[in-house]
């Protein structure tokens, strides 16, 4: 089992006091406006409607559900993830926009929970994607979910919730675990390595044996860039 070294978060050097105020404002707004992805991966999802609706009302904290991964900030893994679901969860996670946060709800996301014997569920979520926060329990009550979210809000405000960077910095590790489970030809449509370059998060953990394996097996899905060229010889029949 590989262990992840905690890479210290490198704060951009900003000497301008105004810039620091601006950064603080941005972090504050990020912590006060959290969109949860509407994806019921497991049975813990049954406690989300109570947490969202009239009784516990998440919206008073600025938290609301969103439909597609592009819109969302938080991926709530509500309980066990079967291997089939895990593929979709990873796809969804990679499609989400950074900064993104993963919360593992229920004991099953920690260590497999009561399904430790099951051939169909993945046991440890943080092998496949970085997790910001676990909310243990089977299943955690809405109060616990909200308390967890508040903790996440504090972490975001203080700038500690940066696990999404970890995914890019240690992509090779995560990809290795994914390949072990899903087979060597595993590929998501998102090109994580080029994204890591895009965010300037390429580190020694990003590339490795597993990413080389990926490059062997994958069909690259590069963005369809706009092309102005006229050099096509044959017009189609």
């Amino acid at each position, binding site marked *: 089992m590989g262990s992840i070294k905690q890479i210290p978060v490198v704060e951009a050097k900003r000497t301008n006091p105004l810039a620091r105020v601006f950064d603080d404002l941005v972090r504050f707004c990020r912590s006060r406006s959290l969109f949860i992805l509407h994806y019921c991966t497991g049975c813990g999802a049954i406690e989300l409607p109570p947490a969202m609706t*009239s009784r516990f009302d998440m919206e008073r904290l600025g938290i609301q559900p969103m439909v597609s991964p592009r819109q969302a900030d938080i991926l709530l893994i509500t309980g066990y993830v079967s291997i089939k679901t895990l593929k979709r969860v990873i796809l969804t996670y990679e499609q989400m926009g950074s900064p993104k946060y993963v919360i593992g709800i229920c004991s099953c996301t920690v260590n497999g929970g009561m399904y430790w014997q099951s051939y169909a569920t993945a046991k440890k979520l943080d092998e496949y994607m970085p997790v910001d926060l676990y909310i243990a329990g089977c299943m955690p009550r809405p109060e616990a979910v909200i308390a967890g979210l508040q903790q996440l809000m504090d972490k975001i405000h203080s700038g500690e919730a940066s696990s999404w960077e970890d995914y890019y910095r240690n992509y090779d590790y995560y990809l290795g675990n994914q390949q072990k489970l899903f087979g060597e030809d595993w590929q998501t449509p998102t090109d994580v390595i080029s994204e890591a370059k895009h965010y300037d998060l390429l580190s020694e953990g990003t590339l490795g044996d597993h990413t080389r394996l990926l490059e062997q097996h994958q069909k690259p899905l590069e963005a369809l860039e706009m092309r102005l060229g006229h050099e096509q010889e044959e017009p189609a029949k």
Partner: protein
Amino acid sequence: MRPENYEAQRQPPSNEFELNFGPNHPGIEGNYALKVKLHGDVVLEAQADGGYLHRGFEKLMEQRLWIQNIALVPRICVPDPSPMELCYSMAVEQLCGLHVPQRANWIRVMQLELSRIAAHLFTFGGHAATTGMYSTMYWGVADRDLVLDLFEEFTGGRVYSIYNIPGGVRRELPSGFLQRVSETLDYIESRLPDYDNLFFKNQVFVKRAKDVGVMTQEQALAWGVTGPNLRATGLAFDVRRDDPYLIYDQLEFEIPTEESGDAWARTLVRRHELMESIRIVRQVVEALPDIHGPIRAPIPNPLAWNVPAGETYTRVESSKGELCYYVVSDGGPKPYRVHVRGPSSMHAVQVLEKLSVGSRIEDIAQTMFSLDACPPEVDR
């Protein structure tokens, strides 16, 4: 096995297109998927895709002690877990020949019916949300929470109570509990006119839900439809009355039916059933103080409990339909085989596929929610 193909060089020249409903889609109940092929907005072909919630319960149960499985079974159907516990407990009791005390049976009925109330509130809240009416959902889920509070009080768990065990129920009711039950029921009953005005009598909703996902009684019987969905086609069949278990034959309740067999009828049947469940719980609340005695039959040391060899098939009416367990024992400390037949295994797969074809995009979600399909029951 890769679910996708990026290597293709050609695409089919047809005018149809594919749309994936789920697993991450608000129009799908839980973690489930429906692949539809559409022309315009009319569904030509629908293919259910399950297994996202597969945990291999049946395999897991073969690997655990009889008593341990009590903790597993409620997780098979998340919105309505109590019938699962009961059905399994009944199977073990039948295999062991355990005689359950009368008081336990009455408490079980109360638990089951409270669970049915919670599940129905949740279901039509969900149905309302698919048509864009979030207020009903917000109200429904919040009112359901009051029932969950009751559960928490007498079982210790909000959702998964693990209260029914082979031989009876786990513990006695707290003092003054029945009073609180009737207060909650009064409150829910007083809310029903609001729901009627907001939702069931809302002309826009009626217009949306009528003639959606229609099935006739013949179709429903041929497709193996059970529960409220079958009753919505006009057949008054209820396992509680026609294959009675516990003490249902001593209770008075009606079996509401509707004739039209569409999404509207199905949801309306649930709403009437809610009333009947309240009625049943009221009867239990009235009768329970006079029924004394133990709440649990004595069982051997659960950690060394060898259930006699045999097989049994138990049936229970869950909020979604006919729920059955086929349990086989080889005389060992663990079940030899447990087969769970959830009602949704029919509704969410074949029935949903068949009803979706020819319907429109906007009605797929309604069809699914009005069938009250519960994916974890399908996937197990």
